């Protein structure tokens, strides 16, 4: 193993790790937004919205994220959508993980006992008041861990934007392999940095989950 090489190139990898973190944070925010909207649509009273929600989930879970990225980045210009690689990658990954988060959020909401809704409605609370004050606070606690699993997947999934030349961890490894011919060291370095990011995020999610269960 070429330690000297690693010491020479690691600052570039740290910079790339920041790009991966930025991608992850933006993707998570977009994914959570899409997930919340998707869950609301899937649970809507109106069949049109339920249909849209179901179609969203099946399309984006039913095709590879890589294809979704390629369609947006390479295919986009053909239909007048011109995006730089970072934006295209973030949007495609965010909408993709949003489909998974839709199901996570919906699952947590429907796992709240029906009796809770009945009790609130019986007191005269409206559907929305019941959702906001009774169901969502309970569902929120139950969705922290499964959303953590989604976030873990999305962080690793950011590697999929390497083929469209976003200079994040995977792309950076590939670039240095081109000039150094040391794939073992380069991919190892990327892998370690991914793991560090995931470890920190995982700790954060565990902490949130513990805090949510106290009361």
């Amino acid at each position, binding site marked *: 193993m070429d330690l000297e090489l690693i010491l020479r190139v690691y600052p570039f990898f740290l910079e790339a790790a920041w790009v991966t973190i930025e991608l992850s944070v933006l993707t998570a925010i977009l994914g959570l937004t899409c997930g919340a909207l998707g869950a609301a649509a899937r649970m809507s009273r109106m069949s049109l919205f339920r249909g849209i929600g179901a179609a969203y989930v099946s399309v984006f879970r039913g095709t590879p994220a890589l294809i979704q990225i390629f369609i947006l980045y390479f295919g986009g210009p053909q239909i007048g959508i011109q995006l730089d690689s970072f934006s295209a990658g973030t949007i495609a990954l965010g909408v993709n993980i949003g489909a998974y988060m839709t199901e996570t959020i919906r699952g947590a909401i429907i796992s709240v006992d029906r*009796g809770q809704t009945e*009790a609130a*409605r019986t*007191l005269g*609370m409206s559907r929305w*008041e019941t959702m906001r004050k*009774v169901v969502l*606070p*309970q569902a929120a606690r139950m969705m922290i861990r499964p959303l953590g699993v989604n976030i873990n997947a999305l962080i690793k999934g950011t590697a999929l934007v390497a083929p469209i030349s976003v200079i994040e961890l995977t792309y950076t490894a590939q670039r240095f392999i081109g000039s150094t011919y040391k794939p073992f060291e380069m991919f190892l370095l990327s892998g370690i940095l991914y793991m560090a990011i995931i470890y920190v995020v995982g700790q954060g999610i565990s902490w949130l989950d513990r805090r949510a269960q106290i009361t």
Partner: protein
Amino acid sequence: MTEYAFVTIKNAAKSYGALEVLKDINLTVQRGQIVAIIGPSGSGKSTLLRAINELDPLTSGEVWLEDVQINRKLPFRQYEAHVNQVRQDIGMVFQHFNLFPHLTVRGNITLAPRMLKGLTEAEADTLAEEQLAKVGLSEKIDEYPSRLSGGQKQRVAIARALAMKPKVMLFDEATSALDPELVEEVNLVMKQLAEEHMTMIIVTHEMDFAASVCDRVLFMDQGVVVEEGPPSVIFQNPKHERTQNFLRKHLNR
């Protein structure tokens, strides 16, 4: 002077597809009257109770609270506004308590009054204290439901329903999920309400309680009211064979 009937059920019927769970039920519960509904499981007694506040709407027939029809057929938004309004007058207590686990006892009691009646925090607190005192649980005001026994949970659930100042209380097997030694404390609270002349409709398996507290007993089986009358008649001299068979199994004598 004619007395208002607090709850009137006319020609109530309900079916799930081909399965008829309620068949042409008529019932009038007077102001301050306490009616027990007994019968085997699957007889439709809970369904009837849940039809009164539109938790399980009827297929046909009418439910009235005083001069307000509860199950009006309205466009969705108007219907929702209407049921949200009338439900404020109908308290309900469930077999499994259904306390909100993320709120304290105080939060459970004050949530709806604060949201729906616009009480200030201080007013709502006073209300919670009053209602808890009534069910004998003043010292539990800041506990979470998970720290209460089953009987205490049900008493808090009763206090929560009473905090909306309902005109009628519905009890859906309020003591069925309780350990035998905890049943009495809930029964005591219900007896106390009876003494205050609260209108109550009680679905129950507790024949002794029904006999000692209720003005009228309905025996239901297979979606119909087989027999009704004062507890002395229903429990001592039931006319129908189905009532006799049911009571033989449920009375320990």
